[in-house]
């Protein structure tokens, strides 16, 4: 409990001093105690209250007491994401270091609600130690996590049987470990491993061998450490049992250890006989009874050549010989330049999934939020490469409460844009046409003098919006995909299709925009080889 106290104060300060702080306008999911769940725009976090809005366009700020909430999925921070990525990828030392950083930075990562990253990081460290098979560290960390239960989501507020077993094993309390595992309903590889360790500790070698098998068999594609250790211990036990009828079994195990997990070697101190056994040839027994038919080549097996780019790229000179990059050549397919923060924050929610470099919208209301845009700037450039499956749907949306903003959407094949400067009525214009199922390159440029240039493919429309920009000082994300309503308050179906690229650049003028883009990527960026209209600003 003592570690929580210092964290409260800075948070309150942040919320109080900066209402539009980091967490502002970020999506979060609240899991209520009554079983309901909602994804909301988080406005702020207090010791006992969560302040939120139903959507960015909503004006009403709701307040939810901590006592009403089971847990909150907060918008992630970069360190957290990196830590999670490292853990998932098995880079445990790196993950532990990063989780340590999360814990050490409570200002960014701690909110006094279950689901905050500081508490979660402590629990994740416990998981890492378990993956490292380090009984003593698990035992020590388990105590720390136990003290965090108040700040953990309900599903983590329990001592897992495996953790209890690890703790017992750290004390060589073998019976205790087995007792702890008795409640496990769906044993995992780790469960098997722990039971095997306990049985081994009790001298029940035969039983331990079968349990170790559970560990290395069910752990396919999982932590190599667990598989390797299970195989090593199992092999050693089978060897010590000395049953000549188990020679084939022993040979299989040491061979698997050496070839697949030991980088060609057995463990240090392995008996010489085992090395000889591993060298021997295995005569595979006839196949287990199986109805596995002849393997079919997977549909996604790569055929044809590895190519360096699209046909468009092929028509261009080499990158070194040109001063621009196509979006398909960028490391980041979604970006925001000239925003309120150093780097954009990208949040997916609802029915959208990332496939390779693209976002796939299933039409149920998914959206990708890119924050946080600066709508004070007079120059704006929106680029999008997409394929729509519908002729009518939302596409791009950016607004701050009811103050103003813009929206781009499709209506019966036409592309429309609502433009609503601060506290002014929205004006709606047709700015192009979009065909379903066709790769569409869209670029909208809003110039300082009010000119709006829209390019859809090679078709260009030029018109005007009121000079002076949107005049919205607050930062707000630009969203592509679904929206609640257009700026003209029209309800439309959510977007369904794919988005390959989206970018939003805002600047004082076009030249600055180009300059900032060039600074970030080393060259100018184009959807298609060079749209000359982008020049000269």
């Amino acid at each position, binding site marked *: 409990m003592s570690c929580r106290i210092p964290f409260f104060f800075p948070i309150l300060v942040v919320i109080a001093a900066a209402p539009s702080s980091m967490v502002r306008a970020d999506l979060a999911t609240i899991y209520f105690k009554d079983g*309901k*769940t*909602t*994804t909301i725009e988080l406005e702020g976090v207090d010791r006992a209250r969560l302040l939120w809005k139903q959507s960015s366009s909503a004006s009403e700020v709701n307040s939810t007491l901590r006592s009403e909430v089971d847990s909150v999925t907060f918008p992630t921070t970069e360190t957290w994401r990196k830590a999670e*990525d490292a853990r998932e*990828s*098995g880079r445990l030392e790196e993950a532990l270091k990063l989780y340590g950083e999360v814990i050490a930075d409570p200002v960014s990562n701690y909110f006094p609600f279950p689901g905050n990253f500081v508490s979660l990081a402590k629990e994740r460290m416990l998981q890492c130690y378990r993956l490292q098979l380090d009984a003593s560290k698990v035992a020590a960390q388990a105590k720390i996590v136990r003290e965090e239960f108040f700040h953990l989501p309900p599903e983590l507020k329990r001592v897992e049987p495996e953790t209890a077993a690890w703790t017992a094993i750290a004390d060589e309390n073998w019976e205790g470990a087995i007792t702890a595992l008795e409640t496990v309903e769906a044993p995992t590889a780790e469960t098997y491993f722990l039971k095997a360790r306990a049985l081994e500790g009790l001298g029940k070698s035969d039983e331990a061998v*079968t349990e170790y*098998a559970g560990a290395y*068999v*069910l752990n*396919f*594609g*999982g932590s190599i450490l667990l598989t390797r250790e299970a195989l090593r211990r*199992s092999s050693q036990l089978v060897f010590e049992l000395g049953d000549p009828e188990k020679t084939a*079994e022993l040979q*299989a195990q040491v061979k*698997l250890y050496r*070839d*697949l997990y030991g980088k060609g070697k057995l463990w240090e101190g392995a008996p010489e006989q085992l090395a000889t056994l591993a060298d021997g040839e295995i005569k*595979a*027994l006839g*196949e*287990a*009874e*199986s*109805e*596995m038919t002849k*393997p079919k080549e*997977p*549909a*996604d097996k*790569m*055929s*044809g*050549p*590895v190519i*360096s780019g699209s046909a*468009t790229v*092929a*028509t261009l*000179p*080499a990158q070194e010989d*040109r*001063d*621009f990059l196509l979006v398909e050549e960028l490391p980041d397919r979604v970006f925001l330049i000239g925003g309120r923060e150093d780097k954009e924050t990208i949040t997916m*929610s*609802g*029915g959208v999934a990332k496939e390779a470099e693209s976002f796939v919208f*299933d*039409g*149920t*209301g998914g959206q990708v939020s890119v924050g946080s845009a600066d709508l004070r700037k007079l120059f704006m450039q929106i680029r999008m490469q997409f394929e729509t499956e519908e002729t009518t749907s939302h596409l791009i949306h950016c607004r701050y409460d009811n103050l103003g903003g813009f929206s781009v959407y499709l209506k019966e094949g036409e592309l429309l844009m609502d433009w609503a400067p601060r506290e002014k009525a929205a004006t709606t214009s047709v700015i192009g046409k979009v065909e379903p199922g066709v*790769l569409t390159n869209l670029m909208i440029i809003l110039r300082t003098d009010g000119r709006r240039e829209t390019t859809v493919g*090679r078709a260009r429309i030029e018109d005007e919006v009121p000079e002076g920009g949107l005049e919205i000082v607050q930062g707000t994300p630009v969203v592509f995909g679904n929206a609640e309503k257009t700026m003209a308050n029209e309800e439309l179906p959510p977007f369904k299709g794919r988005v390959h690229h989206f970018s939003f650049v805002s600047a004082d003028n076009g030249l600055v925009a180009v300059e900032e883009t060039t600074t970030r990527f080393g060259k100018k960026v184009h959807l*298609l*080889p*060079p749209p*000359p209209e982008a*020049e000269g600003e």
Partner: protein
Amino acid sequence: MSQLRQFIRSNSSVLCQAALVLSCLLHGGTPGQTQEEDLTDPVIAYNKSVSAIQLRNWGEALKLTNGVIAEHGNGAMKRFGPVFGHFYFLKGLALLGNDQAKESIEAFKTCYETYSNEILSTGTDDEIKGLLPNLFRNAALVQWANAEMKTEQYVAAKDLFEKVLVVGKDDSKVNLIHVGVNLGRCYLKAGDLKKGYEFMSRPLGNTNLSDGLRETIYMIIAEDWTPEVEFPEVLEFLQTYSEVVDNDPFIERYDRNDRFQYLAQLALQKQDPVRALAWYERIVNPRLLLPEYEQRFESLKNRPVPEELGAKKAEVLNELSKQLNDLEQGYIQTLNGVGSSHFMLQNFPGSYVAFSQLSDQAGKSHPERPVFLHNAVVSAAQIEKWKEAYQYGKQFLDEFPEHDLKPAVARVLVELLFLREEYDEAFRVSGEVRQDMTAGEAIRDVPDFVYGASAFHLGEMETAETELSAYFQTYTEGERREMVHFFLGLTKVQLRKWEEAAGVFSEFLSTYPKSPLTPPVLYQAALSEFMIDRLEDAVAKVNRIHEEFPNHETAPPAWNLKGDIASTLEAPMEEIEFCYTNGRDGGIRFQQSDTTAYSLWQLLMLAVDNEQWDAAAQHYQQFQDDYADSDYRNDFLVAALPMLVEQGRADEGRQLLRDRVWENRTDPESATLSEMFGSYVDFLESNYENDFLQEQLREIQFERGTTPALRGWAMIALADSMEQAEADADTVNKIYYQLEAGFKSEEHSNYPAVRLARWITEVRKRPEEARGLYEYILENRPGTPNYDYCLVDVAQIQAQSDDPAVREEAMQKFAEVVSAIPNEELREKAVLGMARIRMQEKKYEEAIPHWEKYLENRSWSLSRPEANYSLASCYEQQGNLADALKIYVSVYANFPGHLDWSTRAYLRTAAITKGSGEDLKALQILQDMLKRMGHLDHPGVEKAKEVFGTWRVEYAAKVKSQENAK
């Protein structure tokens, strides 16, 4: 402004300059002048083609390039120079984009070969004036190679890529890394595995390259190279480069699962399980993705959407649900493969875990469930997890009674049950499963064996004999033939078919001379031969055991058998003693307490027989010290009694006998109680005064802790003792009355119950009351001692009934005795009983076979005069007077003393003779009878006198009348 010029404005490359020059030359104007209407205009067409390609409008691009080529292609080299090749390059790209790779080859080839830049360096100034270079030449060569590769012309593609590496090495537009990768892949596809791998692995090891490219290369090598090379090479590849794919987030790894799954299955198909497991190790466990997908599902499920989106939401939820199911199926498929790999490696703990999990978790509707269960059974059996093997086997049989794998599962299951010595289940299950199999099928081999062998273990010897014999006949090459041969012999032994047993074992020894079962077979064969007095053969086999298998566990009992044979052959005592001594010592060595106990018993008897009391005492002591709990303890004690009496230890013997009786007092059905009580009473009778005997019996009756069963035995023995002492009937009857009072059949042994029943029948003349006692035993204690007596006694009571139905019950009981009970005394009574019933019912024809059967068995002497007389009566009733007469004569001739039958036989003989008109002869017969028996007091004799008197008067009158007539 044309795109070409826009392009030129924004670029300063050579390419751009060239395009600009091209534009100027073609139009003779300055940049900026365009003729957008004329699509055969090279500049317009070029720019529009590029634009169409950028928008993936392949048809448009193709139309434009074809238009220009058609318009200007002839002489283009001279007119425009190599630069005209650009149109062919664009055409090639359009064709490629339009999935016309084959057609694109010609375009790229033309661009590269026809529009070479060579002229620009070799031509004269005039010749090259105004001509521009083809800047896409190397790019065209790359695309040409790509197109060849796409059309699977790997050799051609390889040659082209090799060329690119030479000519394009300084061309910044050529991505040499990709070229190298593609070239490597072409080598692989063209069969040059070594070179291919070299080219591919170099960029794979280059950490400066993007993760995506390295993953692509890894997968190409995995798919194209690894299946073609030996595993050690694959292993090196895996160990060196697998981190390229192993460390990605789960979701990315999951995308590759199908491809690794394919490689693993390919390896399994080639019987290469280690390789398969290497690929399975690359697969991400789909269950790890469940939380992510479940979260997506839950999130959408909980997200309110406008009404009009309800259907779409449902559709997406359905799709997500399908994906969740795919994850589970992917897990199952992988685990199945992993389990199969471990099975092939004979790592059965591994395969057991996999298939047991699959059996438990894949769901009952999974199409491969029978396979999972089957494999779980087989794997469990291999690691001796009998309980689990049985459970999965049972599940299989319950759920898939018609499945093709049923025989295989059944086979394992029944053998498993048999090995677990669960013979009841083994017998039942094997009996069930084989019903669906055809006798003689290989798959029925084991179930048939288990059925027969289980029957043997269950003591169902007739079934065992039938089944094992059938197996022997049916499965001439059967898997369990040797075992069946053995069990068949044992069955014959159990059935005491010694001759057949000896034959079976003898054949076994010649068929399987090296069988590990040879020692027990020799022993059983010797035992069988001993029983049929082929003593020399038996000795020879026993000697073989001692010579060839002296350290086999059969050797000690074989010594005992040899002792039994020597004893039978009346060999010198020393010889017999030698055998049993060896049996004893061997038994001690092998810790065979039964064998040693038997040896000691025989040694004791030998010593007693030879009045070697000290030696007997020694054996007695050894037995009491070490084998007092042996099964032979009672026999041993009885055998030791003479020695104990001789050594003045009669009281010790008496006490021991009494103790044994006392120990067994609580079980009325105990055969030991019956035997030991008999021995106890005999011992008392032989060694003590009658008063003492009766005192002891009374003591038992009233001792604290005694039981009704023991009391019953004691009272019957007391009654017998009193009868022997000629006590008056009332005194004896008093004991029976006491016993009868409150008699509960379930508390008493059969013998006292039968004795009481007989007393009730014979003394109290209340057979119906007695029947209750008998029937309790008949209904509740089949197979126990005296059961058969009950059967006969009850039948005899029923036979007296006036009710035909009750008599039929008696007939059935008698028939049961005749067919199933080997006791000759009872069989005789039964046949007699049946014949008498039929006589009583005047069913003479049916009575005849019973009487004939009785008379056929010459050892039956209980009622031969009756049988003969009755048979003759039957013949007489049938009108067969000649045969009847013969038998009647034989009755009074052979059994004159049996007056009941001999007098009747005389009378019937005389009557028949008289009936045939031989009055004088009839009188002579009666005269003969009265001469022999006339002095005897018997109703038959009286009757004969009366008849004789009557007939004589009649005969005299008749003679007088005849004389008068003369």
